[in-house]
């Protein structure tokens, strides 16, 4: 293998992407029926949101405690605009993403000009308000019982069924990861890393830190909204139960577990926390305990998360394997 090719494969932007594509392509061989597809699709949709959220947490050093609200706004835009107002699903999806982007911008703009963790508080409030609104405006949203969403039509074909949606969500995930990796490698990403390292230093170097943080927040919110729209069309149903505060925390947990500032970590974290409850059915009583413990233990003992820690260890092993035993 030529050195150039090796280097290319070791680069997460090509090697990692190829790996992820391979996993997505091979996984269906191990999925015996629609239930397994459903879990995989659920993991994929969460992973898309987490890749976006990871940009905010890992690179802008801010947390959002209301991301489920953005996912919900996307889902409900798709549902309400198509059902109540007869919009085309793609137009509804775009409008939802635009609306969420503008909302995120309006909220983040004044708040990210403050130093500190005010974004966490604001997103917490915003997320809960969104969930109260979709619960209350039953005339449009069906209230607590939710509402059905029509299938997505694509050139006159109905997109229905797990097998179809698996590939749609898989492709969307690949695209999101590619976007995220490119963003991190772009000047924006470099500026953000500078901010994360030392904000005052970055400012002295002339980086408009608030500007970049707002940009990343808006991008992550728009990604969440799009994932919400996809999820609504896949499931054919939206309900406010997953728009709440707890779901937002779940998303943060996925990112933290997989590894903050690691795009693939976000994917792994989302996959683990989506699959785990399905393996532990019958133990729902202990779900809260397990969840809380995962959050605390990861931050205390493995603050960089699964994927980065794994790579560090693997690299150390490789290095020590070459050296003579002590």
């Amino acid at each position, binding site marked *: 293998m030529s050195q150039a090719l090796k280097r290319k494969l070791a680069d997460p932007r090509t090697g990692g992407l190829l790996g992820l594509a391979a996993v997505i392509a091979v996984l269906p061989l191990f999925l015996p029926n629609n239930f397994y597809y459903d879990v995989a699709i659920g993991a994929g949709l969460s992973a898309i949101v987490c890749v976006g959220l990871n940009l905010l947490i890992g690179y802008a050093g801010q947390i959002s405690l209301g991301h489920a609200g953005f996912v919900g706004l996307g889902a409900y835009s798709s549902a309400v605009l198509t059902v109540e107002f007869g919009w085309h699903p793609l137009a509804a999806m775009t409008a939802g993403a635009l609306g969420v982007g503008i909302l995120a911008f309006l909220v983040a703009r004044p708040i990210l000009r403050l130093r500190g963790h005010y974004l966490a508080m604001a997103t917490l409030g915003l997320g809960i308000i969104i969930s*109260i609104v979709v619960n209350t405006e039953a005339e449009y949203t069906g209230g607590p019982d939710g509402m059905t969403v029509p299938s997505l039509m694509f050139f006159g074909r109905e997109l229905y069924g797990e097998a179809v949606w698996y590939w749609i969500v898989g492709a969307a995930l690949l695209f999101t990861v590619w976007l995220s990796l490119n963003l991190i490698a772009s000047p924006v990403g470099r500026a953000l890393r500078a901010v994360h390292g030392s904000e005052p230093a970055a400012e002295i170097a002339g980086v408009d830190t608030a500007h970049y943080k707002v940009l990343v927040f808006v991008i992550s919110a728009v990604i969440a909204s799009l994932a919400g729209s996809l999820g609504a069309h896949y499931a054919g149903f939206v309900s406010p139960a997953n728009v709440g505060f707890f779901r937002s925390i779940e998303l943060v947990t996925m990112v933290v577990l997989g590894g903050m500032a690691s795009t693939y970590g976000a994917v792994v974290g989302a996959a683990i926390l989506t699959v785990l409850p399905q393996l532990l059915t019958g133990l729902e009583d202990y779900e809260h305990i397990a969840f809380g413990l995962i959050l605390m233990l990861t931050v205390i003992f493995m603050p960089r998360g699964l994927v980065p820690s794994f790579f560090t260890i693997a690299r150390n092993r490789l290095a020590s394997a070459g050296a003579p035993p002590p």
Partner: protein
Amino acid sequence: MTRHFIKRTLAILLTAAAALAFGAPGAPASETIRIGTFLSVTGPASFLGDPELKTLRMYIESINKDGGVLGRKLELVHYDVQHLADKAKTAIKRLIEDDKVDVIIGPSTTGTTMATIPLVERAGIPMISLAGAVVIINPVKKWVFKTPHTDRMACAKIFGDMKKRGFTRIGMISGTGGFGKSMRGQCKGLAADFGISVLADETYGPKDSDMTPQLTKIKNTKGLQAVLNPGFGQGPAIVTKNFRQLGMGMSLYQSHGVASKKYIELAGAAAEGVRLPAAALLVADQLADNDPQKVVVVGYKKAFEKRWGSAVSTFGGHAYDGLQLAISAIARAGSTDKEKVRAEIEKTSGYIGTGGIVHMSPDDHLGLSLSAFRMLEIKNGEWTLVD
């Protein structure tokens, strides 16, 4: 420490992935009759799912002891879905596709039922929901049945009683959960038919701890004779206490959503004189001896209370009825062929259950009449029969 932890975690994950990929149980459908259920055993609606699951477990055990159905044992497959539509959708796919169950009983709430109906209809498998709202069976869905009375029937029962007592001007205070919201809509739509006008219409959130502001507004609405409170959980108990605290003179009506002993326990003395519609189960011992439901409800109540040591609620009764409807349909069909079982459930006629006497038809997948509801009043901390 860290390294060890990561190793362990990875080991668990790999095992998990392997289990997911290869450990899929290929259901041998010929051996047992597989009854699938997905209830709200944890989360805010656990007071529904908990007695429902207990009831199913207990009766499937005893039916198996007596030889099962069609000479085949019953097997219960259960997933807890809390109150979450997403979990319900995943669970129903698992029940249908992976566990290959023959019939489905549940879920507990209207939201989870509505989320799964499209999948059930596409898959073609009989499902007997244990949730309340009328939208589940109206319009009729081919494969979906339900056992509890609808919220619309509860409104009719309450308004009938109000009319009898000469109340025509009422106020409402409703919970904003799925149950309260649905019933509020049904009652407001139905009020005019009974010549009743709803002059005050307030709501409260599922976690609210103080409803005196809303009740004060109702109190200050001129000429009200009664107040109706659709909702479940702790909310109605707080409403009841606040209602007495404010010294409101009118009559208070609750819904069938509070038909468990817990409500009386929480509201205490404030619950005295409150009326509500409920199934005969709550007043099993007070039923006349010639009441056709007497044997059934007394039997269920005794069995449940003996086995679990806690007071019976109507919610567990819904599960009992669902199970009985399902297995008697399977017995009549002579097989677990889904279409045959569905047709037999639809033909159910004269089944006497805890909720009432069931006569189903192609246009009626509930089969209960208004007479299945009893009007109760709380006296000295006990349910008493009014009519």
